[in-house]
């Protein structure tokens, strides 16, 4: 009798545990589904904003064709400056966060975190050498800072964040993730403090 009661009690406890576990699983699955939906929305929103920028970039191109074989540095630099001036004029009201919007930022944070989870020591080592830049110089529509190298963006990060069309690229300056117009050498947007602090960071950008 006592044994039977014990079995029943055990079964009841097991049932409760199973019910709670299933509920937790269900909640987790729901959360994951919600997260996936949010991510899809963020990515779609980001790509939409990127496409809008690319249209603007293409609008700036007429009359100044791509240079694939010029013997003149003057011609190359002049094209860059013309492109930059035209894009800046089209985006006169551009503000920081126009592309990396508050809604998109968490998506990038998660993506960058997953890159760190894959190879944090490698990423940190790749980001050790910097030329520190005054944060105030980094604004939407400003030229990429003069005399600052185009430091490598760690491949593992690039493989986790959304792909960009050839007109644009990501660059890391200080701890910020920059969106840069490649031909116009222009900062398009900035996500500040997107990158983790790098222990042992030093000025060795040569």
């Amino acid at each position, binding site marked *: 009798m006592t044994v039977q009661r014990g079995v029943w009690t055990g079964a009841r406890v097991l049932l409760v545990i199973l019910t709670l576990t299933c509920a937790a699983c269900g909640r987790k699955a729901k959360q994951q589904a919600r997260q996936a939906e949010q991510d899809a929305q963020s990515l779609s929103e980001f790509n939409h904003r990127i496409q809008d920028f690319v249209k603007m970039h293409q609008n700036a191109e007429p009359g100044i064709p791509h*240079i694939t*074989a010029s013997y003149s540095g003057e011609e190359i630099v002049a094209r860059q400056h013309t492109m930059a001036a035209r894009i800046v004029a089209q985006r006169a009201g551009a503000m920081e966060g126009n592309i990396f919007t508050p809604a998109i930022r968490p998506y990038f944070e998660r993506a960058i975190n997953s890159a760190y989870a894959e190879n944090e020591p490698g990423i940190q080592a790749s980001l050790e050498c910097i030329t520190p830049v005054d944060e105030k110089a980094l604004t939407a529509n400003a030229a990429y800072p003069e005399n600052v190298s185009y430091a490598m963006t760690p491949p593992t990060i690039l*493989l986790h964040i959304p792909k960009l069309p050839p007109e644009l690229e990501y660059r890391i300056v200080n701890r910020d993730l920059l969106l840069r117009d490649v031909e116009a050498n222009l900062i398009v947007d900035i996500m500040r403090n997107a990158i983790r602090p790098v222990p042992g960071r030093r000025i060795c950008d*040569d």
Partner: protein
Amino acid sequence: MRRLVFNPWSIAAVGFLAMAQLPAHKGIQAAAAEKPAAGITLPLKTGSVRFAVIGDSGSGDAAETQVALQMEKTRRLSNFDFVLMVGDNLYGGSSPGDYEQRFGKPFKPLLDRGVKFYAALGNHDNTNETGYAPFNMGGNRYYSFRKADVQFFVLDSNYLDGPQIDWLKGELEKSTAAWKIAYLHHPLYSSGKRHGSDMDLRTVLEPILKNYGVQVVLQGHDHVYERVKAQGGIVYFVVGNSGQLRSGGLGMNGIKEAGFDTDRCFMVVEISGDELYFQTISRAGETVDSGAIKRTAGGIASAP
């Protein structure tokens, strides 16, 4: 997969054998190119592919010009007809004068002789340099070209993203060249104290290079010269002191086979059949490293 055997002790033997074979080829190529010239240890075999390698060259100072002049002297002896640039080709690059001051002017003696340059981008290179005709990049950040049985894969290590990785895999997969040589700016392996090996780049890129049978990788960024002990069947070189120099910049991390960090230098390479010969020459004209790498069907025998 074809792998490498690297044996620096066989340098003299290989050179001797090559010289011994020369009479059989006489009349096929200009006699001047058939004889190993004074100061040149390469065998200068008939029909071989010959090129020079420079890195971090675009300083625009007297040292760069002196390296370029030494290269022209070497070209007259060895008849190399193209130059690989492993990045930092123009420090600056934002003003029109940089192109002339940091490249056109110093390398005029070589450009005037029709020597072609093929550039990779370094972290100091503005991406728009891809449109500079003398760099032969055709507007591309990464590209590939072939000379006889040697295919070169020129990478943009500043920005190794998904599309570039997919492109590289595709190009390597379809390559039928016996020799596959990749070059890029940031080193996967380096004993440089300033930068050293880039671990994230290595994590992503090394498996691809190994899987597709790349035999040699040329790199820059650290302002020194280094020949790295073969790593997984691939011989890595750092040539980052053709304009810039970090004197005493080589550290001790156990991967260095040979190095030079007291002056500027460049490499001359000759590939003939299954052999790759290299000679590294300082701006004063001194040979600071030389040797031969043999491509075989088996695994790699590292240097003793």
